[in-house]
Every structure is written in structure tokens, then in C-alpha cells.
């Protein structure tokens, strides 16, 4: 589905950071980690204060008028031509792939297309624009990875997370069955079709725990709260973390888990 060829920009001096509403409210640590990773690469991070939500929940629920109004309020937040980095495949996919659809037949269409073209998912940006080299300071660990469907299929980033993890010398990536299968989040789907979503997340948690890892990392907060929430409620030995938090913890100044 990543049907356009991606041309990565040269590494810039500055980027816009679009934190996403889930990170803002539930996982600010992951947002901070992402910002710190970028800053360590020598990039100045600009956080537009008026950012709220990309509009995706309303878009996928069919409330396109509402999605458009929210997205319209966000379009003007990126006046300079710096890349816009997003610590989420889902929100990144919304902005990169669906803004042009959302603003079809509106005066904002050219602006939406221009903004969409500058949107990068953060792990993709670190790997392919910053060419980041991670130095693992943590102790040996085995983790499993869940790449969100939007990162995997909308943005074509199936290999990005694993390649970043592979840079960490002490980290072993655990193999799981059906890594490409959805965890069952899907936004409002998890509530509207609770039984189906519940059956999906149960199998995803099983696949992840069967991998032998007790920790999994993921690119997306929706998957994270879905999978971790199921594991916690059902007392499964599985902890989740946003991949950015994990990368920062193992390579930052004071890595956790180091001896």
C-alpha cells in the first residue's frame, strides 16, 4: 500500500514534532524520548503548541466533517518547510496518506498535499534520514516487536523497528508467529466490535508471550494500550513499551537496566 516511492530528504537542522493525542495524554515519556533522540542527532525540535489531534478517530469513524475541521486547525502549524516527524505510524499514516483524501475538493487541498509530503514517522526518520547509530548501554535483554498495521502497510515500515533494534548489541529480537497480524486495536473498532477485537488481542498476546520475551515494543500507542491492557487484565507476563522509550532508555545518558 506504500504505493508512492519515498524520497528521503537530507538530514535537516530543524523538524516539527507532532506528538499525537495519545502520547500527549497517556505516553508523554515516549514523546520526550523521541524528542531527545532527535536532539541527540543534532536536530532542533520545534513543538507547535497548538497541536491537538490529527483527526484520525473521526476520519475512520466516518465523521469526515469533524475530522476535516480538526485537521484544518492543524494544517497551519507547520509554516516552515521543515520535516514533520510523528512518533506514530497511525497518525503519520493519517497525515501522509489521508490528508489529501480528507481535503479533496477544498481550498486547502494544495496545503494538505504539501504538509502530507513532509510527514515522517519518527523511527523511519531516525533510521533513514538521520542514519542514527545506536550505542547500546543496557544489559542483555530479549524483546518482541509489534509493528502497527499502519506503520507496516500504510507507510511500508515493516523492517524499520527491527533494524533499529538490531543496532542494539545486547538486545535479541524474539521471533513470534504471525508478526504481520493486527493486534485488534483499530480505534473505535475495539469498542464497537469488542468481541472480535478481544479475540484478536488475545491471540496477539499469546503470540508475543510465546516468543519467549517478557517485553514487547511497538511503534504505536493504540497497539500498546491494547496489548498491554489485555496482558495486564489477564495477568499475562508481558510488559509493553513504546519503541522510542525503549531506544532512549538503552542509549541515553542514564540508561535504565544498566549495571
Amino acid at each position: 500500500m506504500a504505493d508512492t516511492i519515498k524520497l528521503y530528504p537530507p538530514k535537516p537542522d530543524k523538524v516539527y514534532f507532532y506528538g499525537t493525542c495519545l502520547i500527549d495524554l497517556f505516553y508523554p515519556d515516549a514523546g520526550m524520548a523521541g524528542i531527545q533522540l532527535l536532539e541527540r542527532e543534532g536536530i532542533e525540535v520545534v513543538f507547535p503548541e497548538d497541536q491537538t489531534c490529527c483527526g484520525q478517530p473521526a476520519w475512520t469513524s466516518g465523521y469526515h466533517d469533524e475530522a476535516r475541521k480538526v485537521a484544518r486547525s492543524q494544517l497551519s502549524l507547520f509554516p516552515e518547510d521543515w520535516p514533520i516527524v510523528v512518533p506514530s505510524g497511525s497518525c503519520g499514516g493519517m497525515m501522509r496518506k489521508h490528508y489529501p483524501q480528507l481535503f479533496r475538493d477544498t481550498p486547502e487541498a494544495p496545503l494538505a498535499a504539501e504538509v502530507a509530503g513532509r510527514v515522517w514517522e519518527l523511527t523511519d526518520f531516525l533510521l533513514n534520514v538521520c542514519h542514527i547509530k545506536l550505542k547500546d548501554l543496557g544489559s542483555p535483554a530479549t524483546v518482541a516487536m509489534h509493528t502497527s498495521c499502519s506503520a507496516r502497510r500504510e507507510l511500508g515500515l515493516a523492517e524499520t523497528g527491527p533494524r533499529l533494534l538490531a543496532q542494539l548489541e545486547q538486545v535479541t529480537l524474539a521471533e513470534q508467529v504471525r508478526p504481520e497480524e493486527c493486534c485488534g486495536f483499530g480505534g473505535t473498532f475495539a469498542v464497537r466490535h469488542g468481541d472480535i477485537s478481544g479475540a484478536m488481542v488475545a491471540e496477539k498476546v499469546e503470540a508475543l508471550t510465546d516468543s519467549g520475551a517478557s517485553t514487547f515494543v511497538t511503534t504505536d500507542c493504540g497497539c500498546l494500550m491494547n496489548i498491554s491492557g489485555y496482558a495486564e487484565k489477564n495477568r499475562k507476563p508481558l510488559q509493553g513499551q513504546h519503541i522510542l522509550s525503549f531506544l532512549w532508555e538503552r542509549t541515553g545518558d542514564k540508561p535504565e537496566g544498566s549495571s
Partner: protein
Amino acid sequence: MSQQTGASPSDVRQFHPRARAAIENPKIRRNFRSAMDGLMSKRRNAFSGWDLEALRDLGAAIRQNALAQLPDLLEQLEAKLTENGVRVHWAEDGEQACRIVLDICQARKARSVIKGKSMVSEEMDLNHYLEARDIEALESDLGEYIVQLAHETPSHIIMPAIHKNTGEISELMHEKTGTERSDDVEYLTASARQQLREKFMAADVGISGVNFAVAQTGTLCLVENEGNGRMTTTVPPCHIAVTGIEKVVPTLEDVTALLALLTRSATGQHITTYVNMISGPRKTEELDGPEEVHLVLVDNGRSGIYQDDQLLDTLRCIRCGACMNHCPVYTRIGGHAYGTTYPGPIGKILMPHLLGLDETRHLPSASSLCGACGEVCPVKIPIPDLLVRLRQESVNGDQLHPARVRGHGSKRHAGEALAWKTWQWVHAHPAAYRMGTALASRFNRLQPGKLGAWTRFRTAPRLASKTLHQRLKERDS
């Protein structure tokens, strides 16, 4: 018919309880999981060594090209088939199509009809229609035959009896046809062969579907493994093919590419055992083949889909079933839960046009939009985008692009609409958003532990004590 567990118009309204029942049925879960796992891996292997993206691009272009000339191609097909001696009929809907088939049968004083696999005939509910008029309609595809014995409908468009395991089928055949109980698939298959051969010899009419209709040569292509398609279209004196109007392509060259995609996508086969290419009835000097061949072109909502540039993509479908094989929802609930002729992702984007969005209101939302369907579709139908479009249609959610599908807006409720309006106001007013989220974070201990369906399976996500906005503000000050 009281035991029927397949599609009837009201079943689709019962999507939630039907899905739940399937999820709680370990046999269904096991049967589908193992079948879908096998099909996914077969498909993957079948395309190894191919430039799959280029092939899918070609598949998409072939279907788009055919649709772009659809009325011309249909007229060309009709002219060519007529020249070849095939009689062409047109039906606005399933009822009309049934009537046409019945008229042909009655003109021949037919009492028994043998059928090859045809999803359009399922759409028409043809078997019940004929049986109600004292014409026996017997399915000959082994899967369809099993499903018919059980008074069910197909649970998969390619593998109709995939919801049943060998034990269940053995029991069913024992009860209905008197074969010995056995877990030997060879034996069960041989028994069905015996029973059905009698029927082929006695049948007055054979009815089949069509995979591709070629306008240039007036050729109906039928793709199958069992040989029942050949039997159906060769042994009885009269053959009636039924198909949707979208199945026509300009040339045989188009068929080569679609065939390469169809069988590999469907079952991971390089090709099926038989590819039938039927261009006319038996000629006077020929010794076998049907004396009469008819083609019934069925619209049934398709020309409505055709009007809209985005929805049009739905009509590219070549009915391979790969979208359902790869769908995590279909894998959990199986085909019958949908209560529709076509289950799975293709059913979710096609059935609303056939039955109306009011009837099918639960289908477009029954997807996590994971995109697995679109990723494997051999003709690149953007299924997730179409699901989003139908969700918009369900709630009349876009004033700029008004809804047009029959039954649109049937899912719009004042309460939900108000909730989204409120959501929109908060998120389009950044200051209000910051104030509200800061306040919520501050009092995060008061957040409810139960959040409806979410917390039936999971703990509630916990609000951080400070938002990212606040953390950055503090850091930078």
C-alpha cells in the same frame, strides 16, 4: 430450510450476536484459523519468483481498463456470443435473473438442474427459487454439495464448506446419503462422485458461473479443479451461465494475467486443474456438449456502484477470496457470521450496495482497517479506503461529498453525532484542548476504571500525570 444458517436478509442485522457466537465456538475458531494459515502460506509460495507488484499493477490496470469500456464491452460480448449461437439475457436484479432461468427451464420442461459453483446464483438465491417451483437444483461442487446437504450457505466464496471438518462432513453424508461414517477423505469424495454422476446424467439443465467473459471472442471462462464445472457445462443438453455484468474483459490476453493472479491468490495454485473456455453450443456435427447455451448478465446493484469514481473500484473484484483468507476478523468469526452472500472484506464493501446500508450497517465498521486485505488484493482494490467511505456514508458524515449509497445515514444517531461535534470543538480549539487535557491529567486518579467494551478485555489506559505539552513547557521555561 429451518436449519439454514447462511444468508437471509435479516441475518446481517444480527452481525454482533452471530460474530460473538462464532468467537465462542472453538470448532469454528480452529477450523478457520488452520485453514486461513494454510491458505496464506500457499499464496505466499505461489508468487515466489514473480514480480508481484508489477503483476498486481497489471491486474488492476486490466480491470480498470475493462470497467472504463464496460457498456461497449457488454455490447460486443453480446454480439459475439449471439453470433456464436449463445443466447444472452439481461437481468436488473436477482429476482429477474431467477425468472429468466426459470423460463428457460420451463421451456425445456426441465425437472432437474445440476449446478457448478456460482456466487452470483447464491446472490440470486436461485436454488430456493427453483425448488419452490418444483425444479430440483443440485450443487455439484463438492463444497457446495456438502453445504447444500446441511441446508447451509457457503462460508467462503472459494471453499464453501471450510467451516466443517471431516468428522462433521462424514456424519452429514451418512445421515443424508447413507454413506458409511469415515474419516477417509478419499472415500467420502468417491461417494460424492458416485452420487453426483447419476445426477449429471439425469440433469436437464446445467447452471454455472463465469470467471471471465471475453468480449472479443465471445468466450466464457470457468476456472475449477473438480471437473464439475466441465460436467455441468457439457453433459446436460442445456447450459445456463449466470454472471455479474462486471466480469467482462476485452481480450483473451487479459485473461492470461487475471488467471495468473486468480488461482495463486485464491488457493496458491499456479493454475487450476481445469480452465474451461466456452464459446458456443454444440455444433450440428459435434457428438457432445449442450445444444443450448445461455448467458444471464446480472446487474443487481452493480450499475449503481459504477456511477461513483471511488466505489467503482469495488467492481474490479475477481472473487479470489484472498482478502478473506488474510482478514483477521474473518479468521475469528468465519463466513456465516456475516449473514451475507459474500463474507469478509469484499462482502463488507460489496453487500451494502446489494442490500442497502441500513441492512448492512454493522459491516463497514467491523474492521480494524489493518489493511491486510488491500495488501493482498490481486487487482489492488483499496478495500480499507472503501470501508472508510462506507462508514462516512453510514453516518452521512461528509457534507462536501454527500452520501449516495442506498440506506445511507442509517447509522447516524444524535448522541454519537453530538459526541463527535464536541470532540471536534475541543480539538479545533487548542487552548481549550490544553486546558482540558491538563485538568484531566491532574485528576488522573479519578479516571474511571471501567470503559465499556474496552475494559471487558483490558485494563483502562492510565492518563499520565502531566501531558507532553506540560512537560515540554516546563522543560523549556
